[in-house]
């Protein structure tokens, strides 16, 4: 390690192959993470792709700096309906080395919005204020006040005050907040603050070290593969670690995760603040030679639009004028009378980050401006023009292609009515976030509420990617305060884990029960039921513990929270080796196979997962000496009843409904064959539409549609459906696991009787109103029965060409009767359904409401 704390490069022969915690990226999130981890006594390795640059030797807005400190030399485009310029730092200290140092706290409205939309836990303004206080003290965040404002600031303020619009001086993390962000040593960037602090606490920093991929073994991240560049020399390193924190920024963090095969909700939710610029010519000399920046922001149109100043240099001005250079080049003669300004909007669309396989640095950032964005930018430009003319501007030059210079506020105001065409806008952005949102909403979030990546217990994100949505203000403050909060949670959680006793070694060795599909809602409830019914401290049915197969990207935290006896094996039904690992040592155990694909991305997945996956599983189970296998099938192998009063029983012939039904027929046949040939005890459970606590967010839509009067009733609504409340179904599964009579048998498990569609909808409506006081509109979307047949025909045609559309599939079933009798299970297993529709719906709706789902 050098004196600066920098660990030795490959040329120097040093080789830190291991660390307790690796932090990737040394920007706002990474530097803070490394410092706090090191101060807590962790052995930290901070890996930074960019170079270490001495802040006093380079002005960070010079062309030399742009080439050295910015990713791709400042040339990272965001592709979309109009391409946008995007820049980010790529050096020790990350974007904090090249930014303007403006500091904001997270506005109050974001707390409530983020909690509601992303189901973010423990995210309270009071607690966050404490984190902001601490960081602000470290970074000397302060205001300069009007007495020290520069010429540009004064002129800008004059314009805003003339219009009597709201504005504020934005604090900055500067030793002297009135100084240029580019005066060497002024800005309290990470290289000036948290990085030295991390190094003082023992962290090792390696610059020029790009992490290319995470190394994942057995469902844990065990290290990283990195490329180290030292001058012309490069070396590939594998560095092992117990913990990995990704802080590569909102573009590179999702890119690294996706390159490593981790994709669930990763890079799908990118938010940005698109920005349009203007140069203004004033009578007064602007004294803008020192890269000064106006310190005020207009809040009159916030949160949609923010208006403020931009860094000035003759080069930046020329770049703005380059959109119409032939017409506007003459303005350069008055460069010392000019200032640069911007209007930014909180982008309302979602962009994406993708990696191109096999292409080095092939990170594609996409964002399509929507109509609202276009409108807001047009309004923003109009308002900016008004301010500049009120401040005394003689001409305003927009970053707009094919527009002449504006000479009056009225000309700018025309954009209040008519949008600026997209083809004319030259936009840029420096604020990107939300590409790996944190929270508990399974449809949107890539990490839990504290940055832990879903499906991993030692991989964390701690940078701007986590912000669930646009904060509407400059994001560095929020990024750092959230990173600090997450670390506190991490420390508490680690302490908790250290204090609590180790998981029973029995559960790792010889499990009593194996479960596939355990991360699903039925699986989670079933695992809970194992432990609810086990006498405390007993060595009954689950004496050896429960082992769950957890596919990549699934969050197993609800399972591990059930009991210490629950262990997890990562794997996939399509991967026989992982299934062998899952079944290893499970001699004499019972396997419950719940996993399967119902609504696939591709029709081929039915065969791959439901049929071939089950074949793999049975093989692994047989070889491991598993005693009994209980397999979850469905109503689909038997299709639809011939008329409304008909009930299926276990002897009804196969009449599979589409691809899913065919796959379940094939699966059932495999199970029957396995009992006959391999001697495994098998039981097949057929369950229809099930409902109850833990249901996924998409099922909540069912309640929302009923409440809003938009639930489709096809025909007269008297067609009947069997339904299975989740605890009735668990009762049936528990009996199938234990009763000797069950071996080799198939059972329908459902509520006692089927319900008509009208009864189902009426009951939900009644429960919402009378039990929970939620008013319903009492409407129905009444459609002819033929709509169901039409949807079925479309579904059939789509599936023929390998496509699957969930809504069409569901609509196709809506005019059918799918009803079964549970008499055999009652007679042979003693099955006695405890819940009927109303009681079950009360529990389901209560669970939704208690778990933050909105109906």
């Amino acid at each position, binding site marked *: 390690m050098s004196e600066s704390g920098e660990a030795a490069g490959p040329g120097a022969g040093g080789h830190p192959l291991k660390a307790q915690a690796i932090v990737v990226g040394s920007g706002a999130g990474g530097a803070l993470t490394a410092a706090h981890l090191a101060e807590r006594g962790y052995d930290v390795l901070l890996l930074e792709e960019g170079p270490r640059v001495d802040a006093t030797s380079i002005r960070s*807005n*010079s*062309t030399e700096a742009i*080439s050295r400190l910015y990713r*791709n*030399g*400042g*040339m*990272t*485009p965001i592709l979309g309906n109009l*391409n946008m310029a995007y820049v980010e730092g790529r050096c020790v200290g990350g974007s904090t080395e090249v930014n303007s140092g403006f500091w904001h706290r997270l506005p109050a409205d974001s707390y409530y919005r983020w909690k509601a939309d992303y189901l973010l836990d423990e995210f309270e303004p009071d607690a966050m204020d404490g984190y902001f206080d601490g960081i602000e003290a470290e970074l000397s965040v302060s205001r300069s006040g009007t007495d020290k404002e520069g010429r540009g600031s004064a002129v800008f303020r004059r314009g805003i005050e003339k219009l009597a619009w709201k504005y504020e001086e934005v604090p900055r993390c500067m030793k002297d907040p009135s100084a240029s962000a580019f005066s060497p040593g002024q800005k309290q960037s990470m290289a000036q603050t948290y990085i030295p602090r991390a190094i003082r606490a023992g962290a090792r920093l390696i610059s020029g070290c790009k992490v290319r991929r995470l190394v994942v073994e057995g469902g844990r991240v065990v290290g990283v593969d990195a490329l180290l560049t030292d001058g012309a020399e490069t070396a590939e390193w594998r560095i092992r670690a117990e913990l990995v924190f990704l802080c590569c920024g909102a573009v590179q963090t999702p890119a690294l995760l996706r390159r490593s095969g981790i994709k669930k909700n990763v890079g799908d939710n990118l938010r940005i603040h698109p920005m349009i610029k203007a140069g203004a010519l004033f009578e007064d000399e602007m004294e803008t*030679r020192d890269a000064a920046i106006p310190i005020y922001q207009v809040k009159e149109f916030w949160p949609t639009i923010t208006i403020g100043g931009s860094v000035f*240099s*003759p*080069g*930046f*001005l*020329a*770049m703005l*004028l*380059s*959109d119409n*250079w*032939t017409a506007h*080049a003459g303005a*350069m*003669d008055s*460069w*010392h009378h000019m200032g640069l300004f911007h209007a930014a909007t909180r982008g309302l669309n979602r962009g994406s980050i993708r990696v*191109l396989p096999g*292409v*080095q*640095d*092939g*990170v*594609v950032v996409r964002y399509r401006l929507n109509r609202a964005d276009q409108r807001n930018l047009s309004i923003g430009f109009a308002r900016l023009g008004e301010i500049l003319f009120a401040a005394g501007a003689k001409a305003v030059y927009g970053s707009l*292609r094919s527009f002449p210079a504006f000479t009056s506020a009225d000309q700018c105001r025309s954009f209040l009515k008519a949008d600026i065409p997209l*083809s004319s806008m*030259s936009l840029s952005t420096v604020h990107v976030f939300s590409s790996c949102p944190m929270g508990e909403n399974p449809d949107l979030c890539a990490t839990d509420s504290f940055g832990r990546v879903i499906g991993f217990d030692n991989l964390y994100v701690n940078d701007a990617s986590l912000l669930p949505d646009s904060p509407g203000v400059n994001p560095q403050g929020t990024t750092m305060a959230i990173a600090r909060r997450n670390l506190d949670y991490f420390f508490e959680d680690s302490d908790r884990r250290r204090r609590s006793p180790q998981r029973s070694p029995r559960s790792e060795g010889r499990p009593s029960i194996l479960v596939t599909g355990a991360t699903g809602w039925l699986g989670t409830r079933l695992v809970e039921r194992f432990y609810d019914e086990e006498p405390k401290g007993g060595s009954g049915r689950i004496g050896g513990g429960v082992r769950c197969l957890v596919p990549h990207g699934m969050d197993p935290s609800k399972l591990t929270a059930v009991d210490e006896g629950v262990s997890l094996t990562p794997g996939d039904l399509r991967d026989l080796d992982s299934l062998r690992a899952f079944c290893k040592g499970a001699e004499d155990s019972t396997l419950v196979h719940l996993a399967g694909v119902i609504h696939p991305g591709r029709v081929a997945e039915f065969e791959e997962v439901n049929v071939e996956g089950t074949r793999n599983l049975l093989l692994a189970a047989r070889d491991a000496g598993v005693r009994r296998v209980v397999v979850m099938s469905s109503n689909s192998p038997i299709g639809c009843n011939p008329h409304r009063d008909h009930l299926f029983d276990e002897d009804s012939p196969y009449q599979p409904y589409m691809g899913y039904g065919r796959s379940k027929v094939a699966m059932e046949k495999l199970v029957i064959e396995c009992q006959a040939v391999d001697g495994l005890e098998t039981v097949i459970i057929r369950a229809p539409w099930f409902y109850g606590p833990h249901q996924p967010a998409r099922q909540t839509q069912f309640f929302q549609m009923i409440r809003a009067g938009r639930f489709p009733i096809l025909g007269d609504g008297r067609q009947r459906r069997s339904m299975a409340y989740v605890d009735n179904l668990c009762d049936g599964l528990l009996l199938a696991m234990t009763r000797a009579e069950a071996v080799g048998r198939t059972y329908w498990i459902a509520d006692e009787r089927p319900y008509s569609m009208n009864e189902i909808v009426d009951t939900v409506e009644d429960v919402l109103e009378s039990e929970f006081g939620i008013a319903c509109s009492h409407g129905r979307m009444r459609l002819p029965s033929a709509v169901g047949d039409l949807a079925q025909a479309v579904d059939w045609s789509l599936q023929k060409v390998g496509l699957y559309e969930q809504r069409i599939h569901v609509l196709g079933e809506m005019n059918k009767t799918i009803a079964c009798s549970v008499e055999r299970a009652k007679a042979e297993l003693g099955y006695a359904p405890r819940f009927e529709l109303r009681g079950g719906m009360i529990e389901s709706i209560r669970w939704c409401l208690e778990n933050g789902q909105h109906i």
Partner: protein
Amino acid sequence: MVDEIVQLLTPDDPVLAPAERTRVQSSVSGFVASQVEGLPSFMAMPYRLAISAFGLMSVLRYGRGFCSLEDSRKRAYLALWSEFPIGPPRDFVKLIRGCALLAFFDHPDVTRAMLSELAAEASPHV
């Protein structure tokens, strides 16, 4: 070819001594080239193709490569590309022009010249 385009795009003002201008031009060309090199790999390739297309179309239009055209033709041809009705040719010129102007006006020699012009304007009798 990029050098030629850059040369055409860098303004005559402020006035620089010939040696200074050569130094500035070469630094600007170096910067623009490094920016094109810096593009993400999946964009650098289309960009190189665009440069080739730029050269090829000049041959088709004028029967000569861009570099051997006289300055007025070069300017007209460049103007044609920067006003093209579809985006990619415009973006091609825009990127080179933007980078060239940034590098030119923020070059220390140019800034110094601009400041001395200002000083001269402020004291016209000196």
